[in-house]
């Protein structure tokens, strides 16, 4: 279980490297056939608000079934929706980070359909008057693209998540867990600007990094806090790129599946057109084993959602000064951080990316690095601190490690007041919640470095006296015997002798015995 969680948490870093090696065979095929693809994505992103969009019930993930439900979520008669302002704020942050326009007036609609996961018989969404319009995501070399590409955003809307319906556990029955019913989502609808499966995956990754970085969502596809639907159509090179009929691909639950599904669908549609048939407008799913897409719903079966303005929730009015104040609380975009930190601290792209994968880490780094060696600070953060976080299944934000604690360890290590092993021990203790100062801890462990030469000389002399054979070997010319004595000295002092001192003193005493 912990192993799986560590994997999931380091996934962003691993992915940062692995996808660039992938070559997309399908994208080669489509070009030679004289076809191109038009792709648009709809991302459903769960917001990191503590409570649901229209009820005060907790939005926490992975709780026992049907425990985070109140009368409004379950649609009891007489219950009414109550808008959670935190969700509006998070949605607005996302819009600003995407350089979109926060609409000063937005409103909600009801989208009607009967299903086990829809307790009210409708979903409250923002089909016609979304809170955000416009914006874009830029893909380029930092994302692994050889060229520069801008993917436009059509709109960003707030909406309720559905309950979870579980089929196949009891034959003929559907199990319903209402914990998720009403949790706040933002649906981000892109313009059909994407041309290849690779671009689609890069877009999703970029969105994940961005939304995590500003604290809007965990964007975790395994946990379901990010879900992706993709619209795909094909057209002959030279024709209008919107001329093809599009199909919607749903239930794509990982980046790998997105890539596979999009490529499979492009191939399928090209084949259909090449044999003279028409592409039917359908909703399709993807079977990874056969690498093909299959029909889940035909156009005729597509429901009429009977959109109606939501009468229980008034319009949201947002003014300029609110937007201005919110803008000030936004952190730098990952790109800006990358472009700035690489030259400023002499770091490579992977270094910054690794830190960007952990929310709050770049801020931590920049506070810790003042007056210190960036490489050492980086190394300690990404190997030691990250290692400890993974072991504890913690995030940096919320762990008990503070910047002063961290820098004290680094400083103590740099000035040889402690050894590397001792530094690691202190890190563990601070992260366990140790509140004492570093000096108190060093004293408590009895780790004060013995820099008193007199003491060392006494111990050294004793050692030389007890090892006459080795002394003789040294004097005969085996100067490497010095290491033996230094080692013994370190042993005798429990590693607390300052290494340079130990070496100098030992050498001096040995030479004196010539």
């Amino acid at each position: 279980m912990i192993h799986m969680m560590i994997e999931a948490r380091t996934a962003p870093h691993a992915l940062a490297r692995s996808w660039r090696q992938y070559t997309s065979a399908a994208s080669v095929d489509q070009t030679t056939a004289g076809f191109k693809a038009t792709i648009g994505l709809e991302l459903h992103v769960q917001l990191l608000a503590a409570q649901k969009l229209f009820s005060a019930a907790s939005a926490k993930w992975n709780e026992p079934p049907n425990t985070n439900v109140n009368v409004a979520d379950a649609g009891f008669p007489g219950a009414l929706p109550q808008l959670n302002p935190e969700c509006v704020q998070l949605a607005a942050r996302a819009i600003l980070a995407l350089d979109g326009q926060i609409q000063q007036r937005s409103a909600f609609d009801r989208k009607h359909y009967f299903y086990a996961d829809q307790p009210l018989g409708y979903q409250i969404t923002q089909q016609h008057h979304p809170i955000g319009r416009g914006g874009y995501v830029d893909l380029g070399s930092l994302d692994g693209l050889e060229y520069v590409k801008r993917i436009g955003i059509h709109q960003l809307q707030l909406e309720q998540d559905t309950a979870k319906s579980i089929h196949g556990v009891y034959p003929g029955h559907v199990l319903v867990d209402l914990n998720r019913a009403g949790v706040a989502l933002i649906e981000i609808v892109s313009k059909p600007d994407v041309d290849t499966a690779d671009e689609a995956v890069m877009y999703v990754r970029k969105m994940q990094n961005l939304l995590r970085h500003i604290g809007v969502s965990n964007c975790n596809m395994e946990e379901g806090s990010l879900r992706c639907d993709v619209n795909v159509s094909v057209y002959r090179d030279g024709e209008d790129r919107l001329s093809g009929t599009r199909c919607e691909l749903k239930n794509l639950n990982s980046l790998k599946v997105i890539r596979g599904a999009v490529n499979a669908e492009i191939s399928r549609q090209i084949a259909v057109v090449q044999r003279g048939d028409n592409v039917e407008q359908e909703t399709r799913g993807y079977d990874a084993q056969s690498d093909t897409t299959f029909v889940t719903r035909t156009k005729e079966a597509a429901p009429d959602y009977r959109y109606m303005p939501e009468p229980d929730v008034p319009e949201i009015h947002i003014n300029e000064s609110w937007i201005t104040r919110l803008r000030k609380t936004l952190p730098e975009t990952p790109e800006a951080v990358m472009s700035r930190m690489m030259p400023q601290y002499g770091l490579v792209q992977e270094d910054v990316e690794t830190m960007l994968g952990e929310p709050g880490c770049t801020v931590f780094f920049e506070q810790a690095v003042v007056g210190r060696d960036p490489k050492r600070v980086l190394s300690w953060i990404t190997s030691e601190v990250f290692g400890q976080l993974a072991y504890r299944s913690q995030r940096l934000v919320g762990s008990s490690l503070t910047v002063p604690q961290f820098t004290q360890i680094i400083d103590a290590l740099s000035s040889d007041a402690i050894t590397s092993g001792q530094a690691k021990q202190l890190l563990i203790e601070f992260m366990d919640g140790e509140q004492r100062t570093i000096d108190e801890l060093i004293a408590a462990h009895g780790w004060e470095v013995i820099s008193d030469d007199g003491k060392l000389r006494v111990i050294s002399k004793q050692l030389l006296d007890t090892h006459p054979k080795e002394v003789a070997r040294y004097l005969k010319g085996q100067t490497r015997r010095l290491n033996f004595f230094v080692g013994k000295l370190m042993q005798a002092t429990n590693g607390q002798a300052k290494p340079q001192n130990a070496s100098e003193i030992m050498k001096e005493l040995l030479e004196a015995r010539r």
Partner: protein
Amino acid sequence: MQLLLTRIKLNRLRPVCRYSTPSLNDTYEAISVHNPRLNALPHIHPLDPTQEVNGPLSGWSFAVKSNIASPLPTTCASSMLSSYTSPFSATAVTKLEHAGARMIGTSNMDEFGMGSLNQSSVHGPAHNLHPENGNVLHSPGGSSGGSAAAVAARMCRVALGSDTGGSVRLPASWCGVVGFKPSYGRVSRYGLVSYASSLDSVGILARSTRDIRDTFNIISAPDPHDMTCMSKSLRSRIDTLCASREWISHNTIASEPLKGVRVGVPSEFWVDELSPSAIDAWKRGAAKLESLGCDVIPVSLPHTPHTLPAYYTLALAEASSNLARFDGIRFGTRHPPTQSTRASLKYAQTRTMGFGDEVKRRILLGTFVMSARAYENYYLPSQRIRRLVQREFNRIFAMPNALCTTNTKTDARNVDKVDAILFPTATDTAPVQGSNNGLSAYVNDVMTVSANMAGIPAISVPFGLCEGMPLGLQIAAQYGDDDLVLRIARHLESQPA
């Protein structure tokens, strides 16, 4: 023989206790005398005399319409909810209880608020107290028929109802009591089972406008649970708008208590269906207001004829949406499916068996007008008519609509503008229960729906009898002007029968 009958009647209920306040004793006696015939209260609360709460309404008894959540079953007069008790109470109910009033029972109604006769109810039809000493049972009106009948028969001091298209005012006029629909958003809808969310209002029925006002003062307050409930700042802005009307004085002489108030008579309400007795009451009402110091002038609301079809389109559309949650899965009566295939079909049996015919009819029509094909032809034009109706009221009333302006002052009015309007509540008196058929039942709403479409406050005041059957007159005013409506009503009601 007489003694035997009395004993039998009393034994059907819990024993009447001796309470300190006479009104509660009267309540239970009235219930035992009238409820079997009127069927006004399907559930009666066995009150505990030791549970006394001190407050402004101490000693008051109140009934709660069956679509308002309370500690008793909230059945909405439907088989779907026949044994459903709500896990929470409506804000209005809680406020009344905190004020010291005692809930004595739930009242009968048309299923889910859909009807004007209190004919379609899982508890059986309710009946009108009038004609007293008659043996043919008349309709008490709907959908808050039970509330009106209970108040008329003195089974309670006051009753809560709901008014979506006239469901408090129509029964009030037919039962000879006062029925008040406040401005939309004055009283929290939290706990009111939604029929048409943008038209629903909690309403009050009582035997006097004074009781209405005292109850209104308790239940009219901001509520964060209901986002459409007026905020504190909106209420205070409306107060300022009302108070800035220099021509309406509160220091008036006793013989002309309404001096300065201008009342309009909207000509478009003179519909073909108006009975001679309704017309007569209207004229007498206008004369009475003049004698009280009002200026009574004609006004015009040209879109009145379009309002009824537009109202039904919008109300049914919203109803089909609000009733989608009744599937028997999480609460209510579940009827297992006869053949189980797709998830959506699992609800069909529950909804077919659980809803009555009128409810099913309205859900189907409401679903239709919102469907992709019909939306542009029915729903959207109805919304436009609604906007026009609101604008018409804004044009005739001297006080601006606080929702359409940021003004805090009412400008000096011109000669065409009025402060309130006077018109009948119903086209005729109550029909015999069970006699009505087809479209005529819907036409009963023609006098009342405009107030819901515009969200303005409106009250029905009893204004005499016609062949032993009561009828009422309506006063309505600008959005938020509830105080003026109550004030005019208070003077209008003191009319000898």
